[in-house]
């Protein structure tokens, strides 16, 4: 094995880095799709600046023998596409990193002789084919060939991708692709740049999608037929996904004038019988508090997807954080029940979003799904969801004369009618109201009973909490706590640490907490919480509802997700104490 060989790797991390607009995403799309189709496990994560052109963005693609799906610091193959790429990724580039680049882009930044650099005159080669734009396809071809991609798959993809541009462009891309393959062949034979990743066995049935699509598919499978939202990174992907599939699934998609309109429209639609959703980020959600409270008092279901990004204020619009847990937990004036879910894997995102609609409908409460930028943009191949396991549970009643919208019942849940379906009249009232839905000033009886009715529903909600997942032995000494999108990174870090006494408890429902939470915590000798925010919001929630104080915290708040390596290091450090 010479120094360029990657044969000993079970997983390869390729990072492309360059300016917005340089086509990094095109390469990412190409490679993930064709390699997955060819049977590899693939995963990709992105980080980018809040701008449309320029700056320095990057994509990390992992191709692996085992299924892995988190962000790693390690870069096996680095492809810089502009002059700032090296500087931006410097701390991740080591002597082991293979840098494939024009020397022009890197020579001022590193001593080329000291790194594993492969110089490729991309621009020149692309221009030979006809234009700089073919650079991407050459790079894509090069990487593909390193993995011995079935060339037909690559060409089929290119043909589809450029179909609208005409045959000439397609042929040029083929040419570029072949060029890339040729270079790769030379690298393999001359430099020994060999890769030996094994393909996955279950390739046929696997799907490749990202967090935004997973949430969107969950919504479709949950019966969502109305979405009204205002664009806001990183939540817009869900809106776009539903818009794209609106025709096939009869979904009314409307862009609101602002977030306040969005949530009020969502509640209007739900009142009339729709399965309604809104998608936003923290700043947009901060404008929806009054609407959330309205959902609470009128007892009208709504599913709210909040893709977190770092605040306060505009903060870092295209970055990631788990800093809005407390916001969604306490938003809205007055006391009323709510449910907060936070998927960890793409599978979770599908099932949980699907379920969110059923929960909202059943308990007539707002259900919030918390994701984040990292999760929205995270891609990997997963087995297809099992549709037989899900169902769309509707809880709408045909009304009769004398129908009372807020009828007192034992568990606080009143049969929900909708206008025009049945003989009854449906009165939704944001004022404190009687069972019929009329304004009341009867304080001693009606007000008290209505407050209690709403809280009783919460008792029902508590009986239906999704339990946290325990990964590892239940005889753990150390228990790692995580929630939401940190799932894959923590899981992989623990696989690496491979300590049988450490287990991982992951929460995909963060509120209300599952009743067993305390038990799990108290069994451990040491508990470590891992959160992508600065004040450890989830540990506060845990303390409040279990009394258990978690002392060991691994927190990150620079706008980036945790990498597997830093988790390994930080967990080990705490373990050593």
């Amino acid at each position, binding site marked *: 094995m010479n120094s360029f060989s990657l044969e000993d790797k079970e997983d390869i991390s390729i990072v492309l880095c360059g300016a917005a607009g340089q086509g990094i995403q095109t390469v990412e799309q190409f490679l993930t799709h064709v390699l997955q189709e060819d049977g590899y496990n693939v995963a990709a994560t992105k980080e980018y600046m809040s701008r449309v052109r320029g700056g320095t963005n990057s994509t990390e693609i992992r191709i692996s023998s085992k299924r892995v799906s988190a962000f790693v610091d390690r870069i096996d193959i680095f492809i810089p596409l502009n002059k700032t790429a090296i500087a931006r990724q410097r701390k991740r580039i080591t002597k082991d990193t293979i840098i494939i680049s024009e020397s022009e882009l890197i020579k001022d930044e590193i001593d080329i002789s000291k790194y594993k650099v492969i110089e490729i005159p991309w621009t020149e080669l692309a221009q030979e084919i006809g234009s700089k734009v073919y650079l991407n396809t050459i790079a894509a071809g090069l990487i593909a060939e390193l993995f011995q991609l079935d060339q037909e798959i690559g060409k089929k993809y290119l043909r589809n991708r450029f179909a609208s541009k005409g045959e000439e462009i397609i042929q040029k891309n083929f040419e570029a692709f072949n060029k890339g393959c040729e270079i790769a062949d030379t690298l393999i034979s001359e430099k020994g740049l060999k890769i030996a990743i094994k393909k996955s066995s279950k390739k046929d049935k696997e*799907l490749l999608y990202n967090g935004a699509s997973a949430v969107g*598919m969950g919504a*479709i*499978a949950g*019966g969502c*037929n*109305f979405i*009204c939202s205002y664009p806001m990174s990183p939540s817009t992907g869900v809106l776009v996904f539903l818009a794209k*599939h*609106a*025709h*096939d*699934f*009869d*979904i*009314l998609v*409307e862009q*609101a*004038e*602002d977030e*306040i*309109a*969005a949530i*009020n*429209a*969502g*509640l*209007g*639609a739900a*009142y*009339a*019988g*729709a399965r*309604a959703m809104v998608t936003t980020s923290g700043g947009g959600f901060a404008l929806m508090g*009054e*609407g959330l409270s*309205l959902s609470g008092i*009128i007892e009208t279901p709504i599913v709210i997807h909040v893709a977190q990004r770092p605040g306060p204020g505009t903060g870092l619009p295209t970055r990631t954080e788990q800093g809005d847990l407390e916001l969604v937990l306490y938003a809205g004036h007055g006391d009323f029940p709510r449910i907060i879910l936070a998927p960890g894997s793409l599978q979770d995102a599908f099932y949980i979003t699907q379920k969110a609609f059923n929960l909202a409908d059943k308990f007539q409460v707002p259900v919030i799904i918390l994701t984040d930028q990292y999760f929205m943009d995270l891609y990997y191949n997963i087995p*297809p*969801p099992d*549709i037989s396991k*899900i169902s*769309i549970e509707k809880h709408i009643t045909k009304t009769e004369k004398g129908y009372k919208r807020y009828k007192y019942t034992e568990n606080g849940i009143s049969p929900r009618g*909708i*206008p*025009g379906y*049945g*003989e*009854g*009249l*449906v*009165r*939704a*009232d*944001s*004022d404190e109201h009687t069972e019929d*839905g*009329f*304004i009341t000033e009867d304080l001693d009886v009606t007000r008290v009973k209505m407050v209690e009715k709403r809280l009783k529903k919460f008792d029902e909600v508590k009986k239906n909490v999704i339990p946290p997942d325990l990964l590892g032995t239940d005889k753990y000494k150390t228990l790692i706590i995580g929630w939401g999108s940190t799932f894959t990174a923590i899981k992989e870090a623990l696989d690496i640490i491979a300590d049988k006494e450490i287990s991982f408890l992951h929460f995909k429902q963060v509120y209300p907490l599952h009743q067993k939470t305390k038990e799990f915590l108290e069994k451990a000798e040491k508990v470590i919480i891992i959160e992508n925010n600065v004040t450890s919001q989830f540990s506060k929630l845990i303390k409040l509802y279990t009394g258990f104080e978690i002392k060991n915290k691994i927190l990150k708040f620079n706008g980036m997700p945790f990498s597997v390596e830093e988790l390994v290091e930080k967990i080990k450090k705490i373990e050593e104490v």
Partner: protein
Amino acid sequence: MSKKNIFDMDDIDIAWCPGCGDFQILTTLKEALVELDIKPNNLVLVSGIGQAAKTPQYLNCNFFNGLHGRSLPVAWAIKATNPELVVIAESGDGCSYGEGGNHFIHTVRRNPNITNFVHNNMIYGLTKGQASPTSRFGMKTGIQVDGVILDPFNPLTIAIGLDASFVARTYAGDQKHMKEMMIKAIKHKGYALLDILQPCVSFNKLNTYQWFKERIYYLENHDPTNRLEALKRAAEVEKFPLGIFYVNEKPTFEENTEVYHTNKKPIYKRERDLKKFSEKFL
């Protein structure tokens, strides 16, 4: 109210002040609804918060009494979810043009087939007498101690400026005209704004019945399809012409929405096809 109307409610304690224009609006609305032969359970009244916004509480029908300023997004969404319903958004001037100003302008653009009645008393009634967007320049209140220093908001010029589908004004003191306008507004296909001049006897000592009486007159020989002419009449400052200023027949939001292009069934009645889901994604 003489004979019993199906929208009448038994036994209610109406929270308005004696003499308030809101009573005339309520009575006339019930008459208009009966004349239009609308069924109570097919009607949804949507309101925000304020004195005017209490109107739905006093009619025998479905209602959504939501948040201050937010009646319009609720109203269009209800209509879009179930176009078979008759949807009327009814609220005060503060609710509709103040807190709800952004929804007003964008709902006009959206053009859902709903009706919007605005009780324009040129004051915040329920909160006890602060200036509303339509308050006259110079009017003094507990907050505007030196008088209002903002130019009054003219809902009609704005709606016409936005090329609204139907724009009209009436006066609570003329129930005959009001009923005619209500009926036309409800019948109109598309977003219909009816601004109703309404005296508030408790807090608005400036814009009284007398004051309005001296300033209203009826649009005559006016061609409501002429947008510029409509703007001109709507922009009058000294007087308040009443009638239909502007009618612009155009497709509604529901008609424009793809989900109703071929299939007219309200979306809430459609079942999600999970088999199609599997075919599409799995």
